[in-house]
């Protein structure tokens, strides 16, 4: 039995096929390779892949259990030209967010210039007042960003959300590639795929660049909440690949605003902390006094300029979903550039007109809490029951600041190996950007998450989502460039658009 690809009927953009049976140019080689296999072999390879992950302990913790994050056999491909555009758009966005954070925790020009109400920030639970006066030595608060993208029905990539607190998932990018090259090396022989294993070196360079100037040869550590954190595997991988210590809060101690780690030969100074602990738990003196995973005195050590906390304190104020609506303005205001990547059409419910419209027709919108992560609290209008719609009306009317509404968008689909068949499944993309103060580098590809259930829109790992190896081709394979906006995809009018559900799982780590 040869490999057969099921057609897509969802109306969403299909990443591989421009029409039933017609592969897009960059997929033609892969399709040829895959269809030459038989289903039995494909099944065996899938089994081998999952075995590799279980043996290596490539897992995330969910409800007290270590689960592997299933890797799908069929890679996702992004062409060179499109990637060039995407990566520049992501870097642009990160530069603008960086400028915004510097402004928020500095002069506040954007408020006095009237581009954004100050209250958007002062009412955000993530606006971190103790961060005022904590100045990053090289100006970088966003050493690592994860920008979530989806491709809409017309083939345009849009930004779904910015993760600039503790974006996670990059370990799967690295592990997925390693597993794919091991179990499916033949697929790589016909493609020039940009490598992903330079990420740890780039991250380490960025962290070293962020060290206090007085640290001649800075010591960098990765601070983890510990083995019970969902992303512990990633903390281990990054520490190991960067060749730095993986520490927990209790390994560190602050004395007179210097930070030390406890070693077998005494205390050793630490200069840069790549922390995977949320602000709230980071320093029991400043934040939650009941935190047992933080380091007492850390914030003042950073304030004194003796240690760098990375990502910066209070970054959450910029990935508030209400602030998200302003990011295109940030790009114009701080950079004087035109945004290369669009937001999903989003309405601020603080604005009376928008609020009235959404209250009148909640069934037409996806309504999200501004502070939500993990898909919590999201109401998908077209799918919601009458009770849910009534409840969301009340909630929105009570505090419009806490909600945004978005146009429903269908996530693109990608052929995926499920139950011994290759069927279309919805996907998203989280590229990772690393900033060293001079340059924002974007890891080629990123994490493609896939919802394994049919028609399922939630690509969340904790809800049975999986991931795909994501290939960025080093050169365009065909003459016809596939540029955003120039796509002449036949309109798929067979089905109504679906909604952009939340896909998290791997978004911000929660302690």
């Amino acid at each position: 039995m040869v490999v057969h690809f099921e057609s897509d009927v969802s109306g969403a953009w299909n990443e591989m096929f421009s029409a039933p049976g017609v592969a897009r140019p960059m997929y033609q080689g892969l399709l040829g390779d895959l269809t030459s296999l038989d289903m039995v072999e494909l099944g065996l390879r899938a089994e081998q892949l999952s075995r590799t992950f279980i043996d290596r302990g490539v897992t995330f913790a969910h409800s007290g259990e270590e689960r592997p994050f299933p890797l799908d056999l069929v890679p996702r491909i992004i062409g060179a030209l499109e990637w060039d555009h995407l990566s520049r758009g992501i870097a642009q966005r990160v530069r603008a967010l960086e400028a915004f954070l510097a402004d928020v925790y500095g002069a506040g020009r954007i408020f006095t210039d009237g581009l954004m109400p100050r209250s958007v920030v002062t009412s955000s639970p993530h606006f971190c007042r103790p961060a005022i006066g904590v100045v990053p030595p090289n100006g970088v608060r966003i050493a690592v960003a994860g920008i979530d993208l989806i491709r809409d029905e017309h083939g345009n990539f849009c930004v779904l959300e910015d993760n600039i607190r503790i974006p996670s998932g990059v370990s799967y990018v690295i592990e997925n590639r390693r597993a794919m090259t091991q179990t499916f090396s033949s697929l790589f022989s016909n493609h020039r795929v940009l490598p992903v294993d330079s990420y740890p070196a780039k991250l380490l360079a960025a962290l070293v660049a962020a060290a206090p100037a007085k640290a001649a040869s800075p010591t960098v550590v990765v601070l983890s909440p510990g083995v019970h954190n969902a992303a512990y595997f990633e903390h281990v991988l990054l520490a190991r690949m960067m060749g730095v210590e993986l520490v927990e809060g209790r390994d560190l101690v602050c004395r007179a605003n210097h930070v030390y780690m406890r070693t077998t030969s005494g205390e050793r100074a630490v200069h840069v902390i790549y922390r995977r602990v949320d602000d709230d738990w980071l320093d029991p003196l400043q934040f939650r006094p009941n935190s047992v995973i933080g380091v007492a005195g850390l914030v003042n050590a950073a304030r004194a300029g003796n240690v760098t906390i990375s990502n910066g304190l209070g970054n959450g104020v910029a990935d508030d979903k209400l602030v998200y609506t302003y990011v295109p303005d940030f790009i114009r205001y701080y950079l004087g550039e035109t945004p290369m990547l669009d937001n999903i059409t989003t309405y601020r419910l603080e604005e009376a007109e928008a609020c009235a419209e959404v209250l009148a027709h909640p069934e037409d919108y996806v309504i999200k809490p501004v502070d939500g992560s993990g898909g919590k609290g999201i109401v998908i209008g077209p799918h919601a029951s009458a009770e849910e719609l009534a409840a969301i009306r009340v909630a929105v009317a009570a505090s419009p600041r806490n909600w945004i509404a978005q146009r429903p968008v269908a996530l693109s689909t990608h052929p995926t190996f499920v139950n011994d068949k290759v069927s279309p499944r919805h996907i998203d993309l989280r590229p990772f950007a690393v900033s060293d103060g001079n340059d924002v580098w974007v890891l080629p590809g990123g994490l493609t998450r896939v919802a394994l259930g049919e028609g399922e829109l939630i690509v969340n790992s904790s809800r049975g989502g999986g991931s795909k190896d994501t290939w960025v081709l080093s050169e365009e394979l065909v003459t016809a460039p596939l540029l955003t906006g120039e796509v002449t995809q036949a309109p798929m009018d067979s089905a109504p658009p679906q909604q952009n559900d939340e896909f998290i799982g791997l978004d911000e780590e929660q302690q």
Partner: protein
Amino acid sequence: MSERGMLSRLAESLFWIGRYIERADDTSRIVDSYVHRMVEDPFNDEAATCQSLFAILGIDATDLALTRTSTLDTIVYDVQKPNSIAGSLNGAYENARRSRDFISSEMWVALNTTRNELRPRERVARTLGPATYLAYVRERCALLAGLTDATLSHDDGWQFLVLGRNIERIDMTARLLRGRVAYMEASPDWMAFLRASGAMEAFMRSTHQLDNANGVATFLMLDRMFPRSVLFALNVIDEALMEIQSAGQRDNHGDSARQIVAHARSQLEFIDTETLLDQLPELLQILESACYRITDAVTHKYFRHEEAILWVSEGGL
């Protein structure tokens, strides 16, 4: 040893990985010898044998049924018991998780797959008897020991692991011998011990004597070449401590752990081998106490990290 030392918490984890893997290995050897006895000897008093096994392994058997099945549950399969085989391997795994950025990936994968494999092996063993399970554990422990030596740099971390392994080894040998002394009737004979320790051939080659209790005890205690003998392990411990200390904390107070080792070693070296068996109870006491005190001294000197602190707010804020 590096000038910079290593993270104290990490050092402690490695020490315990060494101890737990060795504990799993030794326990499986001991259990194997007892199971043989129960199967081979129709006149064996099952309850007394189980009792002695618990005593050797330091498990309080007051509330436990002294049958073969429940004994195996407690000593072999029960992952909740830190002294059981499954519990020891789980302890090694938990410590490896905490030191996963330090140990080699091969070690990690070997430990992880071992842990994943225990459940299915247990199901088989419950039908076919524990032998295959015990053999599997010994084989995996040997693999882990080999990977430890072959894939880890022999730096401080490795030294701590070796330290833990050898302290556990002495502890277990001492317990084993004490069991033989205290429960003569209910414990396997000397030869069974030798076989279980994989020491039969080595013993025969070195002494050419069979069935000589004093000879076996002397071999297990004092042989300079056999890596499971107490003296051999004490020498390894001393070397590891010296390596760790040499460039570590340069305190002038000496190394109390090494002093304890030196004391124990001198007790062994000046013993009259002809009457070893008579002095065994006293010697074993000294060794067990030495193991405890060395661990204590090492913990105090090198593992001085805090447990997670629950802070108290000043003024009740």
